[in-house]
């Protein structure tokens, strides 16, 4: 029996390490996969105006069929990124920014923005940003800025599309 003490202790240590490592791997790995998927056809630091979620179009898990999503996979390696959000008056919309470990580092909805367009600059600590801009500092290079726009019916997307396209994303 005694000769199993060592291997048992190793098993417990490895299990604890695998648990911590596995959780980190799932978190950062799934976020990075989402960044790549979002940037697949539009490229990084560009807004991708997603088609409405249907069984045939589900870029991320648990998509809401009632929201028009637009997503920008950002990468701050070569400098800060500026995101413009254009709310549609009279209905819920929001801009949220997620970092590489899935944390929400910024969120603002249409009411908080008083239904007016606004801009934020996403930057790493220490990166120079233009004066007078609202800055969101993040601890990682890559992540996703996501615009949600509520639709009462799916057909509304046609009339709201031009307004939705006023939300944008670009590297400075």
């Amino acid at each position, binding site marked *: 029996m005694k000769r199993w003490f060592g291997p048992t202790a190793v*098993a417990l240590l490895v299990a604890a390490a695998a648990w911590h490592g596995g959780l980190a791997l799932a978190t950062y790995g799934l976020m990075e996969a989402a960044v790549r998927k979002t940037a697949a056809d539009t490229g990084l630091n560009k807004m991708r105006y997603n088609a409405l979620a249907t*069984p045939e179009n589900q870029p991320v898990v*648990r998509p809401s069929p009632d929201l028009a999503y637009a997503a920008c996979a950002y990468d701050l390696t070569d400098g800060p990124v500026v995101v413009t959000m254009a709310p549609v008056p009279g209905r819920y919309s*929001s801009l949220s920014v997620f970092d590489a470990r*899935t*944390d929400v580092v910024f969120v603002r*909805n249409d009411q908080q923005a008083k239904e007016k367009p606004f801009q934020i600059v996403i930057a790493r600590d220490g990166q120079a940003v233009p004066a007078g801009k609202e800055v969101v500092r993040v601890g990682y290079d890559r992540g996703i800025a996501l615009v949600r726009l509520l639709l009462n019916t799916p057909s509304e997307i046609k009339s709201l599309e031009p307004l939705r396209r006023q939300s944008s994303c670009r590297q400075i």
Partner: protein
Amino acid sequence: MKRWQRYTLGVAVGLAAGFGLVWQETGSAFDSGSVTNGIWSTSLNYGIASADPLTRAAVARRGLLALPKTETVYWAASRDSDGKPLDGSCTYELTGKALDSRWWSVTYYDRDGYLVPNDARIWSFSGASITPEEKAGWKVTISPAKPVAGHWLPGVKGQPFELTLRMYNPGPAFVKDPKAAELPVLKKEGCA
């Protein structure tokens, strides 16, 4: 068994146990959320920096890019009031009042959190679906076949399912005590 074999086995068992636990816990963490109310459960820690590593990983796997609770509260249900898994072959009645939020919706997903095909191409029921009179009380039938009258959320025969209840910009009373909120009630009527 030789010494090196015992240690190799130790490492293998450790890896399997550690990763296995991650898989199992991140798969069920929505059900065992920190707040439950009727059939619904949620964690109020989505998206915030103090969220523990397990909540973060569970959200990454099952609800990536979720908003924090001030913006949206996401309730999940995968079992009926008797504790039985939700079954797409069965007929359920979901009843409730207008929820204490700026906007709300109930969405039908498979057990992995994805939308499933149905001929009617309806996957959710929302505050926009009800009339002003229905604010005091609404009813939606979840079933594979379209009900004779009333609102319908199509079920898919032979597949288990989950419901997600989203509350956008929940009201102050709700935020103060989510456990006490009056959430929709699900009743099973029968199975095909």
